[in-house]
């Protein structure tokens, strides 16, 4: 018995100083292999008395457990050391730049159109579109602006033929005409899109964007118009309060007509919407003129409602602090990167209009 104990102590000592995994494995087979020292001791158990066997077996088992335990701890110890060493060697400089990120952006006009559509969608409007090239009738005559009307002078029109029959639409209002001609009331639509006037300076571009709104039903009055625009402006500028002023104006296709101003002030050189004593004109609107309804085969004694037209680029400039309208259309890489929006930043009601 003491032999075994001695063997055990020797091996424990050996294992304590051993650092090589192969050698530890050799010790393991020396002890527990087919003809290993401990294995052989177990074989001897068959040739001794029951009394002795009981005692010896118990001692042997204890020694076996102790040694095995020691071996597995040792193996783990060595392996951990080796792995740590390997990891230490593999260390890299993670502050080196990542592979090139190619960042795409959405143009502010597109973003603002999506914001506008999201807001109006929430109050039941659907989106309609019309062609950029229009005929004279849809752009003017149907909208109660006959040829001899001085209001035509306010639209510097691009023409595609000498008879002035075909033109680039000067506003999105012809979409009203198209929508009403092809459908039956009620109508509740917005129509965003490109519009054109032959005008070019710091604040005017020959192409710009408008969104048209139209709501026609049996009892839609100016109160609804006010409510709708009030809701829109508040949502769009993401402010709790908005100072808004309706002021009489004139458009041939609406009667009564109004222009809408919003209050603003300049704070630290930046424009702040919603407060202040200054007024900024942002849109035109009114009750659709009975002559227009007649032109599109809607009975004005049964149906009435409002229409509005908003300059999209202008709204974007105000909301996002962009000063120069012309820059919208000049495709300067720096400008697009600066003012563009992340493609995943889709304006929606449930996760907020903008981040």
């Amino acid at each position, binding site marked *: 018995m003491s032999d075994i104990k001695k063997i055990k102590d020797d091996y424990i000592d050996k294992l304590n100083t051993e650092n090589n995994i192969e050698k530890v494995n050799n010790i393991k087979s020396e002890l527990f292999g087919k003809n290993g020292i401990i294995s052989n001791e177990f074989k001897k158990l068959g040739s001794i008395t029951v009394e002795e066997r009981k005692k010896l077996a118990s001692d042997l088992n204890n020694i076996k457990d102790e040694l095995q335990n020691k071996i597995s701890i040792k193996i783990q110890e060595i392996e951990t050391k080796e792995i740590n060493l390997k990891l230490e060697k593999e260390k890299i400089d993670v502050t080196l*730049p990542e*592979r*090139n990120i*190619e960042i*795409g*952006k*959405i143009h502010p*006009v597109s973003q603002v159109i999506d914001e506008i*559509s999201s807001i*109006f969608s*929430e*109050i*039941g409007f*659907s*989106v309609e579109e019309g*062609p*950029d*090239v229009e*005929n004279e009738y849809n752009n003017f005559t149907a909208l109660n602006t006959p040829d*001899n*009307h*001085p209001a035509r*002078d306010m639209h510097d029109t*691009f*023409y*595609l*033929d*000498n008879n002035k029959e075909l033109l*680039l639409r000067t506003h999105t209002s012809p979409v009203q005409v198209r929508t009403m001609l092809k459908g039956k009331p*009620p109508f509740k639509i917005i129509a965003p899109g490109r519009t*054109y006037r*032959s005008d070019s300076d710091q604040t005017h571009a*020959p*192409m710009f964007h408008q969104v048209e709104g139209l709501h026609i039903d049996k009892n839609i*009055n*100016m*109160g*609804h118009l*006010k*409510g*709708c625009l009030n809701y829109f402006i508040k949502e769009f500028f993401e402010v709790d309060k908005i100072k808004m002023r*309706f*002021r*009489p*104006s*004139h458009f041939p296709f609406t*009667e*009564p*007509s109004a222009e809408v101003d919003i209050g603003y002030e300049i704070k630290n050189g930046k424009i702040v919407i919603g407060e202040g004593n200054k007024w900024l004109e942002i849109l035109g609107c009114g*009750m659709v003129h009975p002559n227009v309804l007649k032109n599109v085969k809607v009975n004005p004694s049964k149906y009435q409602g409002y229409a509005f037209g908003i300059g999209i680029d202008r709204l974007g400039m105000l909301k996002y602090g962009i000063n120069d309208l012309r820059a919208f*259309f000049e*495709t*300067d*890489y720096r400008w*697009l*990167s600066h003012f*563009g929006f992340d*493609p*995943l930043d*889709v304006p929606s009601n449930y996760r907020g209009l903008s981040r």
Partner: protein
Amino acid sequence: MKFTVDWLKNHLDTKFNNNQIIDKLTNIGLEVESFESSTSELDTFIVAKITNAKTHPNADRLKLCDVDIGGDKTIEVVCGAPNAKNGLLTVYAPPGSIIPKNQMKLSVSKIRGVTSYGMLCSESELQLSNESDGIMELKHNKYANKIGEKYFKNTSEKVIDLSITPNRPDCLGVRGIARDLSAAGAGKLKINKKSNLKYRGNQNINVTIKKEKAQGCTIFGSCLIKGVTNKESPKWLKDKIKSLGQKPISAIVDITNYVMFDLNRPLHAYDADKIDNEIIVRSSSKGESFEALDNKKYILENDMCVISDRSGVLGLGGIIGGTRSGTEYSTKNILLESAYFLPRSIRKTSKQLNIDTDAKFRFERGIDPLSIEEGLIKASELIKQICGGEISNLDVKKIENYKKTIINFDPFLFEKTTGFNIENKELIKILEKLGFNVSKNKKILKLVVPSWRPDITQSIDIVEEIVRIKGYEHINTSEPVKTRLKPTLNYYQKLFHFLQRSVASKGYLETVTWSFTDSKINQLFKENDQEIPIVNPISSDLNVLRNSIFPNLIFYLKKNLDRGFKDISLFEIGPAFKGKNPGDQLTVIGAVKAGKVSRLSWNDKERNVDTFDVKKDVIQSLCEAGIYKDDIVIDDKTPSYYHPGKSGGVYQNKNEKNALAYFGEIHPNIIKKLDIKTESLVIFEICLDYIKESKQKIKDLKSEYKFSDFQKSDRDFAFIINKNFKSQELVNIIKSVDNKLIKSVRVFDVFEGENIPEGKKSIAVNVTIQSEEKTLNENDLDNINKLIISSVESKSGAKIRS
């Protein structure tokens, strides 16, 4: 429309202060553009400081001064004054200023080889004294902190500038504005004094309005004023004319202008002695001409309304008079005209001849046809008062009588339109103050529209009048109703938004460019489309509608490359025009990608962008938008602006006629022609209109979920095949061997050259084989392998590489 508050008070008794008047005007729809002192020629002279005076390099007696003109701006002025020295405060006149002493207009000029921007002034030049030895020296304690400010105080009365909408000709005169204000409770409209003018003799120049089809004049009123002394206008009148932003000319002309702005009643004064016998109002004949008061000679078309005498045209009625019969200081006898011209005729003529005058602007919008006499009387009174003379009886010729507009108005329409109620009493009061004649018939009001309101023709116009005067602030705000009539977006609108963001997410910056472009660049991309010229383009390099989305994109790409950017990805989504009729347009995405991938990367090898970069972007975007990748077929026929060997068309499936997308390298000729400097330029385009809408929604499209757990096997094959044979076909041949067992085929190597015969290439593919019913044994796999090899060899002429 400009006027002073003072002038307004000639017509309005009011206790309102200026700001209240301004607010009221805006509230009733007469938008105030500005309220400020009228500009004066002296406004440009400003206080300035010489910061550095040095000797002129080419002239000893001249000095070169750096002058601080405020706003952090310093300019250089050449000055001959001996007293010009550092730190001197003086008066500076920028280019464009008119020097009071000699009325010279300054311009930027070179003095002895050095450019001088404006000048420093002496007292004599500003007519302040005769002191001309040197420039003004301003006191430091008074002017040191006024650098950049006006030197002369502008003492003129503040002028209100209104932007009058085209429906309100009546407010193109001060009296009309006063009337509107009085209706809105801002005061009381003064009653015009009855004239006690004495008339002597008859207007003995015969006037005829010819009865012609195109006659543009219906009433012609006139009187003769004999024995006048024309002269400079008195100060009060000059001030009025100046407040309008106009130059006083002579008393007679100033008076006719004054009455026009006062009553919105244009008049014209002829030198009666220059009229040949009689006045004939008639339509012109093509080729007639006359010299107008703007010193231009006009050659007329047929059917323009002219005022003529026996010698020919005197002037264009209601638009502009002629020099032949113009009044001068020497004029003794005047014929004064007050007429009514038809808006349609005025508009047509002025458009044809491109003339814009104050009279034209008013007649075009509609002048009160019942104001003929009032205008003649008011002007005659003033002429008599200022220039003396005797006035003849008024002569009014007419070919048409004025017809009153009568509207039967149901007050309920007001509430129905505006959403709020107003007492009948108040409503009637507003209308009466605006000049309506109101009588009641049960619930209906019978309204006679005043003659100065041609814009009012039906009941809805009455609603506007009442709500405008009552105030828009009385309209309630109704909460929006959220009911929806139909979905917000249709399939193509959704596709638009989805693809837009899908392409952007691949690293492309979205841009928006003009719908028009330069025909020279358009030419390179228009293929067989008709060019669509704009009749009146904004500039000659934006003269056609774009047939393709690329001309502008490429143009701006080049601009950015020229700015020094090298790796650029841009795209636009918008219209491409295929014809000049409404609707002849397609919605297209165009994208351009230039430069390199992994430029200056520390770990990846850099390379030029290539066709397969854009192919990936276009296919991935289409897949994200819901097109099945397995259905997509690629073709190598592309528009001529693509590199013919390095571009492809994408079809939604093999039966489709129109390619829904193209991708590839741009044609080298275009790079050369447009002088684009980049390492590589690839492009793609997607035509949204050619994408077919799926009839089913995604909830119906999702098929049953099936998968196989049996073992997969991968086999590699390499074929030697004709160089032009398309890999897509090879893949299809392999797939068709057994659609069930062959799960995927991937091309993993393409190789030409060494060991490969001329005109051939080697293609290596990896084929994944898996059964859904059992684990395939070696025998099964061998059979499939053999079948693949034999099919490929027989269908494509390829040989398996051994």
